[in-house]
């Protein structure tokens, strides 16, 4: 009876943090012993960024229960905004970590703003309609960024839309229209990326396990019932959407700075779907699952390089097989059996009660 749900939730959350830290430790050891290929080394920060994107999208898709196909849009805003902020900080002589922190902060702020503005019209819709409108918003963001020019020199910031501003040196530009973002300095800091990932996970987990998170999940399960018990639907929908967008922005800044250049075309529909694949594969509402799926599916294509031309076919086949396994009853039954065994071991003293047949429950 005294078995509190708090403790089980806490245990589950700390397992996730533990998995991330374990991943970090293993990678650091591999790196120190020289067993990590250069290619994999370059994937470490993007893995963290993808994990944040997946976890944050899970907040919208799994926890709020609204299908968003525009997550890449928020990522790109964070990426470009963060890149600009980092360039300005770099010019001012700031160190690597300050640049990164500034970039992430700028990415979060801009994405929050974008999330709020896009959320206003989008969150009036439901289901398929919402998905399509988020897709359109992502497309708009991509088009805007493709035509945006931002440069800086001694005389200040120079911005142009559609055309590059005249009379400014070409290498002064950070955001160069269709040529994308060019970073002043590549910041590829794996420990900082892990810290950011854990920070995002803590925020998501703590949000879910609070009155706000409960309200968000209530909307997902039954909107009419949520209204009937006095829950303000619009504000909680917006909260989930904006928090999700903000973290996508942070992930975008992290990702963008780890690359020398980023093209705006990268953040298209395919990218949104890729993040959605992480979420669905990891399990709707299962944050840990999204993080693991994001890591595995980012590593997998690299590991399959030896297959050369067949690489993407094998990747797709693996995806199909894993999805089938997730949904097969055989696989599920096996998982539940293992869980059941573990549980029986843990609560050996108190067998699970059937409330309907439990005489103590009726007397109470």
């Amino acid at each position, binding site marked *: *009876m005294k*078995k*509190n*749900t*708090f403790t089980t939730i806490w245990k589950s959350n700390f397992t996730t943090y533990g998995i991330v830290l374990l991943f970090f430790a293993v990678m650091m050891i591999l790196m120190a012993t020289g067993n990590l290929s250069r290619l994999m080394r370059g994937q470490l920060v993007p893995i963290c960024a993808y994990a944040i994107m997946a976890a944050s999208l899970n907040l919208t898709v799994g926890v709020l229960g609204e299908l968003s196909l525009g997550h890449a849009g928020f990522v790109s805003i964070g990426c470009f905004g963060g890149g600009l902020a980092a360039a300005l900080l770099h010019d001012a002589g700031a160190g690597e970590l300050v640049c990164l922190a500034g970039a992430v902060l700028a990415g979060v702020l801009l994405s929050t703003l974008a999330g709020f503005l896009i959320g206003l019209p989008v969150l009036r819709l439901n289901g398929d309609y919402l998905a399509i409108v988020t897709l359109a918003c992502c497309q708009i963001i991509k088009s805007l960024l493709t035509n945006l020019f931002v440069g800086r020199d001694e005389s200040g910031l120079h911005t142009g839309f559609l055309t590059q501003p005249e009379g400014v040196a070409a290498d002064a530009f950070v955001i160069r229209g269709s040529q994308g973002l060019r970073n002043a300095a590549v910041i590829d800091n794996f420990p900082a990326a892990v810290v950011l990932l854990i920070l995002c996970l803590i*925020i998501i987990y*703590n*949000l879910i*396990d*609070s*009155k*706000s*998170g*409960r*309200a968000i*999940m*209530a909307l*997902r*399960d*039954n909107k*009419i*019932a*949520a*209204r*009937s*018990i*006095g*829950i*303000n*639907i619009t504000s909680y929908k917006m*909260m989930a959407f904006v928090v999700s967008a903000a973290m996508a922005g942070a992930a975008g800044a992290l990702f963008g700075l780890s690359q020398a250049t980023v093209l705006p075309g990268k953040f298209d529909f395919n990218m949104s779907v890729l993040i959605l694949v992480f979420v669905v594969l990891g399990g709707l*509402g299962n944050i840990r699952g999204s993080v693991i799926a994001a890591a595995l599916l980012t590593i997998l294509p690299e590991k399959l390089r030896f297959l050369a031309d067949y690489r993407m076919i094998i990747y797709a086949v693996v995806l199909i097989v894993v999805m089938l396994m997730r949904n097969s009853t055989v696989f599920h039954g096996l998982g539940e059996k293992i869980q059941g065994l573990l549980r029986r071991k843990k609560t050996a003293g108190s067998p699970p*009660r059937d*409330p*309907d047949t*439990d005489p*103590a*429950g*009726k*007397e*109470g």
Partner: protein
Amino acid sequence: MAARKTYEPTVMVSPPSDILIPERDLGEIPALECRHLGITFGGLHAVENFNLTVGKTEIAGLIGPNGAGKTTVFNLITKVYQPTTGTILLAGRDIAGMDTAAVNRAGIGRTFQNIRLFNNLTVEDNVKLGLHNSIRYRSFAGVLRLPSYWQEEKKAHERALELLSVFKMERMADLRAGGLPYGVQRRLEIIRALATEPRLLLLDEPAAGMNPSETEELMETIRRIRDEFRIAVLLIEHDMKLVMGICEGIAVMNFGKIIAKGTPDQIRNDPEVIEAYLGKNREE
């Protein structure tokens, strides 16, 4: 039992003449007053000139054949639909312009004919959601795990178990709501509504899917809820044993209109009610 109310009306809509509330609630502001309530759906009068007064601690019943408009009345009172005409007073306060969530905060809790629980959440979380507006900490305090979060969540946990004990469901706190048996889900829905601290509890077919002994128990519990929480209950029910057994006042609807009001005894012998349920005798 039938008596005129003795308080000043707060809203300038002529009150209907046939106000029925139990004697002990006389002199108190009624929990609910519907005056000339109506709604039309594309020319169809789903509910028309609906007048009902529920005393402060009354258990009232709303009965009638299928499609009579009973659930529509609940949806009007809770503003799922906006009434086309009429006024709704909750404890003397006009609830015009409020939405469903605001109506709940003003003091109306309800259950649904087709159960609407938060199926993927635990029983305890369902009740805690009912407590949502009485849990006092901000979202950022939840994310940062400030002391207010721990205090308020602990209070909510204790209060949730306390409420679950009304139906002896404390032991089910950790179970998934969607996996519960039908009758238990109905009880959980009532607890969730009670958690919002309503003045008036609307129960839409609370005994549906329950066996006779469960119904018996439910009747006892509804009475106990009324006595312990000092609230009014308005219920829609087809189980006449329950309605006649616990309701102090009954209104009968047919084709969107009230065709009879009175005590269980009056209703049982009302020719118009018998006709609505059984049809007209041709020889008459």
